[in-house]
């Protein structure tokens, strides 16, 4: 990291001029982009807190987040040592927010990676191999995108009542269409480039061309898409919870905490506000990072 930031400060006359690789250049750009750095830092902070503190809470402090305590019902933030008050069952809201964040963020991270992996694989095959493969994959893409996205998710999760793991798979299985279409379009134009022709003339096999020559060139748009998808997934999770088909209580997620709180506008406003604000901040940060990546990974940046 030290190396990179030194490069970001641009060489003076005495220093030898580095030739920066594309990735290093992008990293240097992001390090200078304040808004993106804020987004990244917040995401990192949330992730660290949500993924590490449950171990401390369970093993060192010996607290069970689902412990109810009727005396504490609707305690306001700050009362009785409860940092963010307690919910309608007297459970510590702050701890539940951490646990909820762990699941919401897990869904965002894992499902977005899975979505993109499926999307790339199918998009690459459709774009590169063409003909029958393209026909079949395009048909699936067209079919899935002809159904308003939330309908299928709603029906699938209502019918199979998924656990977190299954929900992640379902989200990815229904969400890859956009990425795939994007990748396919990109590959269609990339495979006609001269460097692909050159690689083929040298006797490179199709998988080799796909992985070494085409994949790196779609890397940037895929990274951007993945970040945006991660943000959307958090919103989708909360939407599904609202409709009553998401991850079921008592397992907390930001989505179902928000949904549970809707009856307590009067008695526990802090319960309504906190998950909503956390969702908003997280999604916002994913979008900001996505935007930043888009600029950083755009090779035409310096022409403008």
């Amino acid at each position, binding site marked *: 990291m030290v190396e990179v930031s030194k490069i970001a400060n641009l060489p003076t006359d005495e220093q030898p001029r580095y030739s920066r690789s594309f990735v290093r250049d992008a990293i240097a750009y992001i390090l200078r982009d304040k808004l993106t750095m804020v987004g990244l830092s917040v995401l990192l902070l949330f992730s660290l807190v949500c993924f590490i503190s449950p171990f401390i809470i369970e093993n060192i402090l010996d607290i069970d987040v689902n412990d109810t305590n009727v005396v504490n019902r609707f305690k306001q933030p700050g009362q009785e040592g409860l940092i963010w008050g307690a919910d309608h069952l007297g459970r510590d809201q702050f701890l539940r927010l951490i646990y909820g964040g762990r699941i919401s963020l897990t869904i965002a991270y894992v499902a977005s990676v899975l979505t993109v992996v499926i999307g790339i694989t199918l998009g690459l095959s459709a774009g590169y191999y063409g003909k029958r493969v393209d026909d079949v994959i395009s048909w699936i893409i067209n*079919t899935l995108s002809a159904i308003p*996205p939330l309908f299928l998710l709603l029906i699938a999760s209502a019918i199979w009542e998924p656990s977190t793991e299954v929900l992640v798979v379902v989200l990815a299985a229904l969400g890859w269409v956009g990425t795939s279409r994007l990748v396919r379009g990109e590959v269609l134009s990339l495979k006609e480039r001269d460097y692909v022709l050159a690689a083929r003339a040298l006797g490179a096999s199709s998988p080799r061309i796909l992985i070494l020559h085409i994949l790196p060139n779609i890397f940037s748009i895929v990274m951007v898409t993945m970040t945006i998808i991660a943000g959307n997934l958090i919103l989708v999770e909360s*939407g599904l919870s*609202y409709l009553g088909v998401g991850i079921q209580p008592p397992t907390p997620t930001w989505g179902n905490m928000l949904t549970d709180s809707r009856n307590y506008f009067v008695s526990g406003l802090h319960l309504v506000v906190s998950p909503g604000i956390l969702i908003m901040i997280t999604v*916002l940060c994913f979008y900001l990072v996505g935007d930043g990546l888009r600029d950083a990974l755009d090779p035409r940046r310096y022409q403008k």
Partner: protein
Amino acid sequence: MVKFFQRRLLQAIPTFFGVTILSFLIILSAPGDPVTLITFQPNADPETAATMRRQLGLDQPPLIQYIYWLIGNDWTLVDVDGDGVGETPGERYGLLRGDFGDSIKQKKPVLDLMVQRIPATLRLTVSALILGYGIGVLLGVLAAVFHRTWLDQLIRIVTVIGNAVPAFWLGLLLIVVFGVQLKLLPISGMQDITQRGEQTLGEAIRHMILPVFVLSLNTVAFISRFTRTQVLEVMEQDYIRTAHAKGLHTRVIWMRHALRNGLLPVATFLGPSIGTLLAGAVIIEQVFQWPGMGKLIVDAVFQRDYPLVMGSIVIASVMFILGVLLSDLMYVLLDPRIRLD
């Protein structure tokens, strides 16, 4: 032009069949026995259950069931008593002939139930589309005109935040503020319960303000970003420089040259926007108790009313496919360059 439209219509056919296959497969793999769902009797007489099964065609292999659902079974004989010989002709006409079957819970044809609900959903989505495009384009153009100023930044931040808030949460907050606290707007529904007869326009609009606003936020965010990018791109074109060089007034350049060309691609997102709005309506209708399709579908899903669920997927998709087709058509009409091909 006609040829283009014909080709697009032909392309929609495999998609339509894909949708029917998919919705059939989902329901086929759903747990629970349809006969139990209809009769509410888990311990029904096996004899009666078997007869019912044969009547409904559930004893047939999935492929045949799919075909019956699609084109009906009135052209064949149904073997009701199970002796291997069909005696009475089937009574279903299939969805291709407008028969989506009957809802299990409401005992009414699925199509009738859907048709009743479509106007309410259309009222919501079309208004949100108009509002979303109106505000989105306006903000996008403003952001492009005042490129890299505080206004540009402000528009970016406001739209991104609007997009990052869970819609149902925002809806509930707005209901509490404007409906419960300030008592300015109705808290839910499409009309007042006490009201009889025709709804006045003002009354209708008062009920629409909150749901339409929340539903349109997504479109506003997306369209404003896209408009900004497009307009900025156009401003770098040579013909804009030419217009500047020949001394045209800046306003003329913006109105005549930049906006006309920059806004054209924005029209291509009409189709996809319809899908987003239909999906968003599912949640918004639930929040505002809006009597539309989305609410019907959510209720059907929870009551395991499978014919209604299957039918609603197909009908919603058909609406979506038609919407995309219409927006393509509009685009061709708007852009003379495409017509030449």
